[in-house]
C-alpha cells in the first residue's frame, strides 16, 4: 500500500531537485538579460528591480559608442575568420593522410592532441611570447592568428580525422574503378561528403578564437589592437553602476556567435548525413 505513495513522493522530490538546478543555471543568464534592458535611471535604484520596468535597447547602442567595442569586434572577426580558414586548410590534408595511411606519426599526433588539452598554457606562453617578440609579431593581429591556429589545430585535426574516417574507402575505390583520377575522386566524391565536417571544424575554430582571452591578453598589449574579449574585460574597471547596462548588452552580443555554433552543431549531430552514402 505504501509503495505508490513513496513513489509519488520520490517523483515530487525529483521535480524539486530539477527546479533547483534550473534556477541555479538560468538565473545568472536572466539577470544578464534584465540588466541589459534596464534604463540608467533604473540601474541606479538602491533596491534593484528584478525585471526592467521600461525595457530599452538603448544600452546596445551605448555599448558601441562608448568604448571601442565595434573596433574590438571587427578585430576579433578578422582574427577568428583567419584562424578558422587557416586551421582547416592546414589540418585537412593531415587528417586525410592520418585516416588513409597507418604510421607511427598517427600515434604521436594523437598523443599530442591529448597532451595539448591538459598542458598549462603558462609554460608555453612565456617562450612563445619571447619568440613572437623576436619576430616582431607582438601587438599584431598576425601574431595572435598564428598562436590561435597553433592551439586550435590539434583538436581540429582530431575532429576532421573522425569525419574523414567516416567516408568509406570503398567510395574512393569505386570512383577509381569508374576511371576517376586521384584528384577527381577527392574533389567530386570525398569533398561533398566531408563538407559538413569541414563546416563544423570551421565553426569550432572560429568560436575558439573568438572566445579566447589569455593569449590575446599576452600578445596584444596595445589597446588599439585589442580584440573583443579584451575590450570587454577592460570595460569593467572602476565602473559606476550606470555603465553596467551597456556592459551587459555588449556581453550578450559577444555570445551570439557561440550560441549559433551550438545550435548548428546540435542539429548536425542528429541528422546522420552519412546514412545513405554506402547503400546506393
Amino acid at each position, binding site marked *: 500500500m505504501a509503495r505508490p505513495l513513496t513513489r509519488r513522493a520520490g517523483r515530487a522530490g525529483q521535480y524539486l531537485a530539477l527546479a533547483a*538546478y534550473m534556477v541555479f*543555471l538560468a538565473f545568472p543568464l536572466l539577470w544578464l538579460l534584465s540588466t541589459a534592458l534596464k534604463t540608467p535611471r533604473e540601474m541606479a535604484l538602491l533596491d534593484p528591480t528584478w525585471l526592467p520596468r521600461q525595457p530599452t535597447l538603448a544600452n546596445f547602442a551605448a555599448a558601441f559608442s562608448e568604448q571601442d567595442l565595434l573596433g574590438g569586434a571587427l578585430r576579433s572577426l578578422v582574427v577568428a575568420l583567419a584562424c578558422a580558414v587557416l586551421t582547416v586548410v592546414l589540418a585537412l590534408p593531415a587528417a586525410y593522410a592520418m585516416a588513409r595511411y597507418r604510421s607511427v606519426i598517427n600515434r604521436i599526433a594523437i598523443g599530442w592532441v591529448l597532451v595539448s588539452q591538459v598542458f*598549462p598554457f603558462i*609554460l608555453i606562453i612565456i*617562450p*612563445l611570447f619571447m619568440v613572437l617578440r623576436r619576430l616582431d609579431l607582438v601587438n599584431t593581429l598576425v601574431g595572435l592568428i598564428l598562436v590561435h591556429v597553433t592551439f586550435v589545430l590539434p583538436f581540429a585535426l582530431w575532429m576532421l580525422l573522425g569525419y574523414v574516417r567516416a567516408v568509406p574507402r570503398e567510395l574512393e575505390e569505386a570512383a577509381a574503378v569508374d576511371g576517376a583520377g586521384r584528384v577527381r575522386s577527392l574533389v567530386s566524391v570525398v569533398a561533398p561528403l566531408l563538407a559538413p565536417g569541414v563546416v563544423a571544424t570551421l565553426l569550432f575554430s572560429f568560436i575558439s578564437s573568438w572566445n579566447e582571452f589569455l593569449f590575446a591578453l599576452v600578445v596584444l598589449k596595445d589597446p588599439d589592437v585589442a580584440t573583443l574579449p579584451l575590450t570587454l574585460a577592460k570595460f569593467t574597471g572602476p565602473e559606476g553602476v550606470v555603465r553596467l547596462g551597456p556592459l551587459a548588452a555588449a*556581453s550578450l552580443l559577444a555570445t551570439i556567435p557561440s550560441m549559433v555554433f551550438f545550435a548548428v552543431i546540435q542539429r548536425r549531430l542528429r541528422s546522420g548525413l552519412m546514412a545513405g552514402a554506402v547503400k546506393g
Partner: protein
Amino acid sequence: MTAAHARRRTAPDRGRREMLLLMLPALVPVLVFSVGPLIYGIALSLTDAQGGRDPSFVGLANFGDLLTDGDFWGSFRIGMIWALSVTVVQFAASLGLALLLNQNLRLRGLARVLAVVPWAMPPVVIGLMWRLVYHPNAGLLNSVLRDLGLIGQNIDWLNDFSLALPAVIVVGVWAGMPQTTVVLLAGLQSVPKELHEAAQMDGASVWRRFWNVTLPQLRPVIVAITSLDFVWNINQFSLVYVLTQGGPGGQTRLPMLFAYEEAFRYGFFGYAATLGVAIVVVVLAVLGLYLWRQMREAN
C-alpha cells in the same frame, strides 16, 4: 617476380612520402609554436631570464627560490582548494543533474538546453555576468538575500577576504557543469538496462541499484572526467582574472594568475617558467596517485 617484389616495396614508400607531404602544413606550426616553445619553456626554468636581459643558466636555483617563496605557497594552497572543491562539487552536482535528465521527467528538454548553455559562453562573458550577480549594490544575489531577510546590508562578495574564494568557486562550478553533465549522461545511457532489470527482480532498492549497478558501470567515465576537470581547473585563468584579478589581497590568486603576474607584470620569465614546470609536476603527481588508486580498487 622481381617486378612484383619491387612494386610491393615502392608502393608503401610512395604512400609514406605522400603522407609526410600532406602532414607537413600542420606539423610545421605545431612544432614551431608549441612543441618548440614547450622545450624552450622547460629550459627557461633553469635560467634567470628577465624582461630585457640575456638569460644565463642558473641550474635549479629557481626551484630553490620557489620552495621558500611564501607567495607561491599561498597561491599554490588557493589553487589546490579551488581545483579540488570545484572538481568535487562539479562532479556531485553534475551526477545529480545527469541522473535527473536520464529520468522521464517533464521539462527535461528545457533543462537539457539550459545545462549546455554555459558551455557556449565565452569565459570572459561568464565572468562579467557573475560580477553583475555579485555586484554589491546592483546585484541579484544581495537583492534576493535581502528580500528573504537573510542579510541586513549589502555584501561585497568578490572583495570580501573570506567570501571571495567560495564565491569564485561557485562560478567555476557553474561554468564547468555542462561538460561533466553531458559526459556523465552519456555514460548513464550506456549502462545496459538488463542489469537494472535483473537487480530489480532480485528486489534491490533504488539506492542499492544505484550503488551496486550504476556506479560500478560508470566508474571509467567518472575517473576520466574528474581527472580532466581537475587539470582544467588547476589551469584556469580567464574566469578568475575577469572576476577578481586574484584579489582581494591575493585570496583568489590561482597559480596561473601568480605565474602570469610574475612573467608579464614583473618580467621574471625564468621564474614564471619554473612555476609552470612545478605545476605540471604537481598535476602529474596528483593525477598519477588518483589513477593508480582507482586502478587498484577496480582490480
